[in-house]
């Protein structure tokens, strides 16, 4: 609800509930370990913090970036074994060993992540399971180093420098510190460019790439941060229990438990994993207490059933439900004032004022010698089929070029060749005099100031309208506040500002089409490729979108438009090229095209006029 200036104000005011409620929670967490002095209770609190840390670390990859890793146990184990071995063999303090372990785990993660991130979701999960299991076997059989299945016992020498303490309290505070740190990191990520990028790539990787997101790098960075905390938690575990063995620190159920905590608590949210830990860990301890005595494994049966039921019936977790309750709660507390609402409902699109402007705002078509964009002899085959055959054309700065042709003529293929979804077999593409043939992946094309939309709109469904546009804006600015400003400007322009806090999934078709335009516009393109933006809209909606497209053109943005709705393309385009069976069969101004014999034949069937 709040605007950027608004939130900055509240963050300075200690008497605002948005500040004092979280602060009170943190203070509460700090006194939690020392409330009753009883070892069972202390152990429980410590385990909640410890599991909360691990789950929040897993959430960065599994929740934010949407890459389901079931091999996190491998990094946990590497952390535990590295610091322990360094301590046992070389007497290196676990405080340093912790970072050595994290470093090693990160190196391994990079080696694994690069090939595995190319896999589709199910296979990524599969590859990570396999990886974790292999490390468990290696640790079991490399007896010379790890003593195999017997495990490693750490002699108890309590001292701060040895990362060993007589009481559980210091451990509890270290775990709390780790947990608060990962919450803070998650919070910062969630509100930064990087976080927007992660969530956008989870929602739709192609759309994210098109808006300038380097998806492979983002996934890798998320993995590295996640692995760091996971490995550090591994060291903590070793120092707390003073015993590690492959079957516990490399166990697959550990990886699954991280996911379970996160899913129950709220996948992809900042505090969801911690909420999950607060609910499930006490439950787990109780289960172990009551059932574990009867037989080992029973608690995992319960866990497994909870997991299956949760993913079938409640995949959204508790945090989502909690949020709808938390915000109104804050508003009822003293000091909240009026933090939002009301204002902004009547934002009129900047476009109406501009549309009433005379044509002088239009820079017009630049008739200069060198075109802005040039395609020469572009060809692409898929299997035996020539999708695009020897296509050449130019687009001048400020021009609107239409691309039409019957279904399957190869129009979208041309867009995909230009925007880096696949490379052409032959031919040359130039933009602003620079060759960009085969430039891939798509985010590199976006950075060159070429934007595009998709025929089937690709909104980031679980992000708000504002956040959707901010993803595009981040391709030009770093700071969230700047991206927000730019997004506001774009939302005003496309007439969506009244929906800025709604989830993209709640928009109507027509508004999703506007949003699609808005995301692309936020990347500040000089050339914008529009793929059937008015398809499926009713005449009134079509008119509105056409007005927006005209306004975009008036801003000096060059447009290249695929459209099936002839009325739209005939009124918009300065020039039109016609594609049929992958070949260019006509090129000219709209009036010429609509009379062209070959075009009429291609569209309506030959002999139509006969």
């Amino acid at each position, binding site marked *: 609800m709040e605007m950027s200036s608004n939130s900055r104000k509240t963050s300075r005011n200690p008497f605002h509930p948005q500040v004092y409620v979280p602060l009170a929670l943190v203070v509460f967490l700090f006194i939690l370990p020392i409330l009753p002095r009883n070892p069972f209770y202390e152990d429980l609190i410590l385990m909640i913090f410890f599991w909360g840390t691990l789950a929040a670390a897993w959430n960065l990859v599994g929740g934010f970036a949407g890459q389901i890793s079931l091999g996190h146990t491998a990094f946990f184990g590497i952390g535990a074994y590295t610091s322990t071995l360094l301590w046992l063999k070389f007497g290196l303090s676990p405080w340093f060993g912790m970072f050595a372990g994290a470093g090693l785990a990160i190196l391994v993660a990079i080696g694994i992540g690069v090939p595995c991130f190319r896999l589709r979701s199910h296979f990524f999960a599969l590859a990570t399971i396999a990886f974790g299991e292999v490390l468990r076997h290696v640790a079991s059989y490399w007896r010379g180093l790890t003593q195999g299945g017997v495990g490693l016992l750490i002699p108890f020498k309590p001292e701060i420098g040895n990362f060993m303490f007589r009481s559980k309290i210091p451990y509890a505070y270290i775990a709390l510190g780790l947990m608060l740190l990962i919450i803070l990191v998650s919070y910062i990520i969630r509100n930064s460019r990087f976080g927007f990028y992660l969530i956008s790539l989870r929602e739709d990787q192609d759309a994210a790439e098109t808006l300038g997101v380097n998806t492979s790098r983002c996934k890798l960075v998320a993995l590295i941060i996640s692995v760091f905390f996971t490995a550090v938690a591994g060291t903590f575990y070793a120092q707390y229990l003073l015993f590690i063995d492959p079957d516990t620190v490399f166990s697959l159920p550990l990886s699954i438990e991280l996911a379970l905590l996160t899913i129950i608590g709220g996948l992809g949210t900042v505090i969801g994993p911690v909420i999950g830990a607060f609910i499930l860990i006490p439950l787990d301890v109780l289960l172990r207490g009551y059932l574990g005595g009867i037989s080992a494994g029973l608690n995992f049966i319960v866990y497994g059933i909870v997991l299956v039921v949760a993913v079938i019936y409640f995949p959204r977790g508790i945090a989502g439900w909690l949020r709808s309750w938390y915000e109104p709660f804050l508003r009822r507390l003293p000091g909240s004032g009026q933090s939002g609402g009301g204002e902004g409902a009547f934002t009129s699109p900047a476009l109406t004022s501009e549309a009433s402007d005379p044509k002088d705002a239009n820079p017009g078509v630049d008739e200069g010698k060198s075109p802005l964009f040039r395609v020469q002899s572009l060809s692409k085959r898929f299997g035996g089929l020539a999708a695009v055959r020897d296509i050449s054309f130019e687009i001048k700065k400020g021009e609107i070029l239409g691309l039409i042709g*019957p*279904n*399957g003529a190869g129009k979208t293929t041309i867009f995909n060749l230009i925007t880096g979804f696949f490379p052409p077999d032959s031919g040359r593409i130039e933009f602003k005099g620079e060759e960009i043939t085969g430039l891939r992946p798509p985010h590199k094309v976006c950075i060159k100031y070429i934007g595009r939309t998709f025929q*089937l*709109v690709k909104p980031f469904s679980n992000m708000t309208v504002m956040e959707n546009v901010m993803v595009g804006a981040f391709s030009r600015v770093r700071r969230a506040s700047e991206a927000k400003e730019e997004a506001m400007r774009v939302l005003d322009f496309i007439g969506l500002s009244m929906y800025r806090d709604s989830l993209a999934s709640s928009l109507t*078709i027509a508004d*999703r089409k506007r949003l699609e335009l808005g995301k692309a516009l936020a990347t500040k393109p000089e050339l914008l490729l529009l793929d*059937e933006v008015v*398809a*499926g*809209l*009713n*005449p009134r909606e079509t008119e509105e979108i056409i007005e927006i497209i005209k306004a975009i053109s008036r801003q000096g943005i060059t447009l290249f438009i695929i459209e*099936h*709705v*002839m*009325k*739209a*393309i*005939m*009124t918009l385009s300065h020039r039109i090229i016609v594609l049929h*069976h992958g070949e260019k069969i006509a090129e000219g101004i709209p009036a010429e095209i*609509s009379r062209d014999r070959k075009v*009429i*034949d291609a*569209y*309506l*069937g*030959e*002999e*139509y006029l006969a």
Partner: protein
Amino acid sequence: MPIWGRSILLDLENISAHYGDVQALENVSLRIKEGQIVSIVGSNGAGKSTTLNTISGVIQSSSGTIEFLGKRIENLPPHRIVELGIVQIPEARLLFPYMTVLENLELGAFNPQARKGTGENLEAVFRLFPVLEDRKNQLAGTLSGGEQQMLAIARGLMARPKLLMLDEPSLGLAPLLVKQVFETVKEINAQGITVLLVEQNVFHSLSIADEAYVLENGRVVLGGQGKEILSNPQVKEAYLGI
């Protein structure tokens, strides 16, 4: 040919449907009489394929009724609808590419009624498309575009349809083959099979149609005899915007 004497085969009353995000139908009503060729024309995204998929049961209609031979079918699953004799030949053919021509045809006759007569059906489609007999042991994915379209039609015929629905059968075919496809459709109709045709090729599809409907934005904007509609300037406008 008088058409008013024939019984109604398929009757759509006020059908509305939502298909993924983009395409939708709004109160579409259309009627197909036994033995007719009925064409649906309209630009991309107008809802032509959605209409066929709603009839086939692939998309659940949100309101309205569909009657086939007097029986309500709008809530039946796709395989039950095929059993009743409504068969769709989908856009882009969707053959089983790693199966032979013969296997593709056999799968066309999957429903129990059709399966009984597989042998004679096979003879009949081979008479219609002799080239398929020559290639019966070839993988469907290795056929040429024209042959693939023939196979798609033949596979649909194997189901012994009472109503055959074709979605863009001329898509991506060279002009000569396009003509052939429409000849085939006429031939199939002459054998007594009712045809519902969705096409971009307005000229051909309207000139063979007994009746036709023009769809725009998921609504029927024009309906009447095929030849009448062909000469209606509104059609040309919808397509070429002039």
